[in-house]
């Protein structure tokens, strides 16, 4: 929290620094990479969208300390909602003839799809969160995972509305690097504001010592629920943009299970306890994934044509995650945030003056 007595622009800037620094870095990277080629710009967009999902996941996991294997469900719910709202009515009539009348006729603007998708995902999160936040530890992990399976089975077989494992096409493709960058920046900011807010700090207290937090009157379940809903909403934004960047949705081949695995892996590799972990983890695994995607297609290195068999990218992703968990269980960032550059040297002398520096 920022001290309300001295809100000056410089104080605000300092307070936001750990988040802003990453936003600036991401902006520079995005513009630099997008300038190379349309293919590279698509990669940048894809990475930024994953970053949004990871940020969403982080808002819950990072602050509450409870693992969720259920956020893939919010990606599904929000993406399809936005698709129902934004696919042009003429196409809907052909592709989804079973859609109810009012959805058939809706021809909404992209932002309506975004708002609608986020709202529905948040609502689902609220309803399922009320019972699920009572669980802790392994029960919470299994419970959220069961929830994911329920949602994914429903969308997989609800062919009249979703086309199931076939592709649902016709989504307006409006997401490019700039929109993805804006959305990612907003997500990071939301996450930062939440984690430094009263709610976020109290929730972190429950993560460190639930019994002590309860004893001092903190209502852990309510805080977890707030984080869960907010986290679902941010992840949902990622889910929606993913659909509108690819132009099609499908639940075939465990797409969402794998996507969910990927974002969990990114968070874990980066470090679940800090916002910096979100960015570091996402970028690291995206870069490694991209290199191996290239190798699967085949590249020439020093005259050698190297082609890796399909599937090697996923194998490597899994391997990176395992190595990270074994060698660096706290993630690459070890739960640390960026510190204000000039002050990092005298942190030891003045630890109490800027408590935002360390969020381990």
């Amino acid at each position: 929290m920022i001290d309300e007595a001295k809100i000056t622009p410089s104080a605000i800037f300092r307070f936001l620094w750990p988040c802003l620094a990453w936003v600036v870095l991401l902006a520079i990277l995005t513009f630099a990479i997008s300038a190379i080629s349309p293919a590279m710009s698509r990669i940048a967009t894809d990475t930024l969208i994953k970053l949004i999902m990871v940020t969403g996941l982080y808002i819950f996991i990072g602050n509450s300390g409870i693992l969720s294997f259920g956020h893939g469900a919010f990606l599904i719910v929000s993406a399809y909602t936005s698709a129902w709202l934004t696919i042009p009515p003429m196409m809907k009539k052909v592709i989804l003839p079973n859609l109810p009348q009012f959805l058939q006729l809706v021809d909404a603007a992209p932002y309506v799809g975004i708002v609608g998708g986020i709202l529905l995902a948040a609502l689902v999160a609220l309803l399922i969160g009320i019972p699920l936040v009572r669980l802790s530890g392994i029960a919470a992990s299994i419970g959220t995972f069961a929830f994911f399976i329920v949602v994914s089975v429903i969308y997989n077989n609800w062919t009249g509305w979703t086309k199931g494992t076939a592709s649902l096409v016709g989504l307006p493709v409006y997401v490019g690097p700039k929109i993805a960058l804006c959305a990612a920046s907003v997500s990071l900011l939301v996450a930062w504001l939440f984690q430094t807010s009263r709610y976020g700090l109290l929730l972190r207290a429950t993560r460190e010592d639930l019994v002590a937090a309860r004893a001092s009157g903190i209502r852990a379940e309510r805080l977890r629920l707030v984080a869960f809903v907010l986290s679902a909403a941010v992840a949902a934004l990622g889910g929606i943009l993913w659909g509108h960047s690819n132009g099609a949705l499908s639940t075939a081949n465990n797409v969402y299970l794998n996507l969910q695995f990927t974002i969990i892996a990114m968070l874990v590799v980066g470090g679940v306890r800090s916002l910096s972990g979100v960015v570091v983890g996402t970028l690291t695994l995206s870069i490694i994934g991209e290199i191996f995607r290239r190798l699967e297609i085949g590249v020439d290195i020093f005259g050698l044509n190297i082609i890796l068999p399909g599937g090697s990218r996923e194998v490597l992703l899994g391997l990176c995650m395992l190595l990270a968990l074994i060698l660096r269980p706290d993630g690459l960032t070890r739960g640390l945030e960026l510190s204000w550059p000039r002050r990092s040297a005298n942190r030891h002398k003045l630890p109490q003056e800027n408590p935002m520096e360390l969020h381990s």
Partner: protein
Amino acid sequence: MTFLQMLIDAASVGGLYALTAIGIGLIFGVIGLVNFAYGEYIMVGAYVLLLTAGFYWPVAVLCVLVFVVIFALASDWLVFRQVRRAPPETLMIVSFGLSFMIQYFYVMLFGSLTRTVNFLPEISRGFEVGGLRIAGVSLLQIGATLVLTAALAIFINFTRIGYQMRAVSENPRMARLVGVNSNRIIAAAFAISALLAVTVTVLFVAQTGSMTPFFGVSLTMIGFVATVIGGLGSLPGCALGGFLVGALTTLLQMLLPPDLQPFREAFVFAAVIVVLLVRPRGLIAVRSSLERV
């Protein structure tokens, strides 16, 4: 379909689920690991059957057994032992990552399409008794479940490794302090769970004759359901949980209207959430010596 027929179907499906659930529950009971990669022990075994097609069947089964036990021990040695002291949630991600990796490694080796093998077609043939249609493999499933569950119960309760396993499960540090070689005990648990996985593999492949690198996932999921319903880590609970899930799916198959049939699995997993909320320690209050708080 008569009631008896339904009972047989439920028991044979449930037997497979029960074996899977026990394999998962045993490892969870001993080291608190929810092993997603368990499905991969089942899956890699199926591909061994694919490669040994044409061998005399006991030889093929022996090959599967040897391979899968080594595979399971290697997964413990190379991966899980490295994170032994991590909290259960971290272990769960680790096993998730391992499972994912193995699946795609098999995609690299065998492609992601369905492969078929004609393994012991004789036993999947059915015969009729008093109007009941019974497949040989169903009887095997029921029989194998009963025999293996009983054998495991005896092993856990009455042998030296059995009580050492219970000790490691209850208090790993104290077990080390009295000289129990916990790594060896844990390896034994992995080997036993691999043995159960091999049984599932053989029965499953004999029944369906097909496999993909992903087919372990759905069995693992069902196994989890049974494990949770039975009470995590309680072996008799896992066995009963497996049979219950088998009964539930058979029942849903009978009772659900056709347009809701595809959503069967959703009902099963919704049941998991309900059980976790209402009876976090399992539906069946069986107290096992291996259970973990």
